[in-house]
């Protein structure tokens, strides 16, 4: 447990990052052109009295810093993210409603991609430049070049319209009446779109790092001891080769929360990305701030975990942290 102090030292930095992000979001939504008052009032926006009354009601007439302090203290003390003006729902309620679908999409996509990428990369690196390896590399390259929405349209055409295996749109909760089967069927296509892109990236990353590691002396050493190939690959080569993969894997958790927006919209999945888009178009600042805050916290936490994993995987990181 030598890595614990290094980790603890990072915590204040993380809190600071979240605070800065929340402040910048607050500024950004303030600077965005367009006024929620116009959006809410519509044609009534021409009436200065209605505008003034609504501004007072929303607290928009108070000074900017005062509003930020009010907001952040509410968040810290009661986890009170305010009330969305457009729908009159608590932002907290909106987020808890929308988070499960996004988390499910991301977790499934990440785990399945890793499960596919690791064996493919091991095989590719072991048989580097063989015909099979070239096929894996080429298809990975192809999959990376296909944009998500194009892949989505293609998969819907094949698996919903032609084969009728999966629904074209919609989301069924695990807790819904039809249980986990319907739930998995409903996320199959969007997860497949994500998996296609992620697996390709992970395979390429891990394969090239593995090839580099396989040139190292300790691998030659292990081989000359007569250890079986799978043992050399998995026990000796994989761990030192997994750093780029781990870094990208961690960052992806953050980017995917925003990156699923198009897929959530396309497949009508009630996730947090869709909430962000709806809220931005309605100038629903509090909802936007809530989403960004959640994304920032998730991003920071996941990367924090990745840092811990680094130090577990590689003793050098621990020592560097202690120095």
């Amino acid at each position, binding site marked *: 447990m030598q890595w614990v102090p290094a980790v603890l030292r990072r915590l204040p930095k993380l809190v600071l990052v979240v605070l800065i992000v929340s402040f910048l979001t607050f500024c950004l939504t303030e600077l965005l052109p367009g006024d929620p008052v116009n959006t809410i009032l519509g044609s009534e926006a021409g009436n200065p009295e209605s505008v003034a009354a609504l501004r007072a009601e929303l607290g928009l007439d108070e000074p900017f810093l005062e509003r930020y302090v009010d907001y952040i203290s509410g968040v810290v003390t009661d986890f009170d993210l305010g009330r969305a003006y457009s729908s009159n*729902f608590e932002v907290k309620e909106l987020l808890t409603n929308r988070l499960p679908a996004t988390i499910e999409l991301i977790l499934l996509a990440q785990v399945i991609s890793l499960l596919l990428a690791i064996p493919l990369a091991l095989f590719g690196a072991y048989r580097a430049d063989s015909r099979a390896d070239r096929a894996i590399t080429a298809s990975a390259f192809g999959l990376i070049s296909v944009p998500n929405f194009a892949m989505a349209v293609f998969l*819907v055409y094949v698996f919903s319209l032609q084969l009728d295996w999966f629904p*074209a749109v919609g989301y069924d909760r695990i807790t819904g009446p039809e249980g986990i089967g319907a739930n998995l069927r409903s996320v199959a296509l969007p997860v497949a779109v994500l998996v296609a892109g992620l697996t390709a990236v992970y395979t390429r990353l891990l394969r090239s790092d593995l090839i580099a590691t396989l040139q190292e002396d300790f691998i030659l050493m292990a081989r000359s001891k007569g250890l079986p190939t799978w043992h050399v690959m998995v026990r000796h080569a994989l761990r030192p080769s997994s750093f780029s993969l781990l870094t990208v894997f961690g960052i992806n958790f953050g980017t995917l929360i925003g990156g699923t927006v198009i897929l959530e919209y396309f497949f*009508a999945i009630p*996730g947090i990305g869709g909430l962000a888009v709806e809220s931005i178009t309605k100038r629903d600042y509090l909802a936007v701030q809530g989403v960004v805050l959640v994304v920032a916290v998730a991003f920071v936490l996941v990367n924090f975990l990745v840092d811990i994993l680094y130090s577990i995987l590689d003793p050098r990181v621990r020592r560097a942290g202690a120095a």
Partner: protein
Amino acid sequence: VLLGLTLIAAACGGDDDDGGAAPDGNTDDTEQPEGTPVKGGELVFGTESDVATLDAGAAAQPADKVITLGIYDPLTTYNEDGEIEPYLAETLTGSDDLQTYEMTLRDGVTFHDDTPLNADAVVKHFNRMKDPATGCPCQGSVSIIESMETPDGPEGLAVTFHLATPSVAFPDLLARSEGYVESPAAVAQHGADYKNHPVGTGPFELAEFTPGERVVLTANPDYWKTDENGIQLPYLDKLTIRPIPDTGQRLAALQAGDIDIFQTADSGTVAQAEESGFTAQKISGSSSTIILMNISKPPFNDVRARQALAYAINKDVINERVYSGVRTPSYSGFATDSPYFNEDAQTPKYDPERAEELVNELGGLEFELVCIPTPEADQILQLVKQMGEAVGMKITLSSQEQGAYVNRIFSKGGDYEAACFRNNHFIEPDQIRAGLTTDDPGNLVFYSNPEVDELLDRGRQTADFDERKEIYDEVQVITTEELPTITTLYDLFGNVYDEDIVGPPPPGEANSLGAIKPGYLYRVDG
């Protein structure tokens, strides 16, 4: 010819059929194009957005309307001739000065929680809508009700409304979401959380509400209404509403059989669905895109400049290029099916020679046309620019983000020359008053004609249809000549379905683009 077409359409529909549907159903359909509604079964309805609210009074989006018109009943409604009539109310009578309205409610109607519908429920409903704490966008419109009385007591069925100012449009207000009455017991029970537990008198009860995912409605077994054949409404046992934001995916979901009917405001999707063999109920005319011209300053203070622009625009080309040809060009401030639509007073049709003459007479016409940046607006404005420049105008296009745009249009004196806008065509004609009355804040083009002012004032002082028809016909004759605005095309809303599965949907609700009363939706095979 029409019958022939129907038969062919039915034959094609039969080819697509997987053989599951009863052939008898198809034959019935061809003999009676209207079809005879059958009771039973369930449908899945794809809406264009997630439901924003299930609270009575606040429903505004087409997605909200499909659901709330299932859960609630409006106090009044429009019949097929565009005349208003009582619905949940049994009678509604206005006083001569139109400042007092007496209403009697239907007897024996209960809310889904068995609370009786009575005067008390109606009074509590409007008081709740007026309360700022409710946060209803309708707070302004219901503030016209100054006080209410219940002559037969709160348990009785009579309510008298005293209005703050005389209003001929009060019955119209009760046909909108303002007139959806909710159970006072449910409000008392759930308080601020009522929006998640809506209880009305409507044909359906709320069975499940999962935001972003689905709303499930089940038939209200004690619904008060039957159709003209005596069948108890609603026809369906169950209606599931699924929000599908992407319009192309709504069509894919219909093709895959995930849903049975969907709504869309996208004309391209309507055209595409028809090409794929589906049927589209096209509801047109409750709003349109228009061009505002600032009459308070040059160049549009000269009526010839306004006429020149009207003659220069070819609305059929806009329809073809931007809307796949499925929309209807508009030459009036009223919907064509409005009882107040004056067929003899239509704004200028495309006439490039006349436009060019006028531009030459004026010695050239140069102006800036401003709009909010949407792909649709960009396309339309580019076309308008081309058409204007073809007859010698010089048009500068400018795009401004909505907030800045609204500020420009609504600023004193109007900081614009020409601008795009969306105009609602309400059936109640008094709604055009603000836009045309001298010095009214809603008069964005600074139009002023004492004769029109006088006519519009007279139009709101009487409830007599014939008298009002004459008045608004006259207004249309004048405005057609003076052109305070140019309408371009009526917006179109489509409900797309497979006619082998879903019967023709009920007519669209007046004043609310595309909304239908889901109590009348039915499955062909029951």
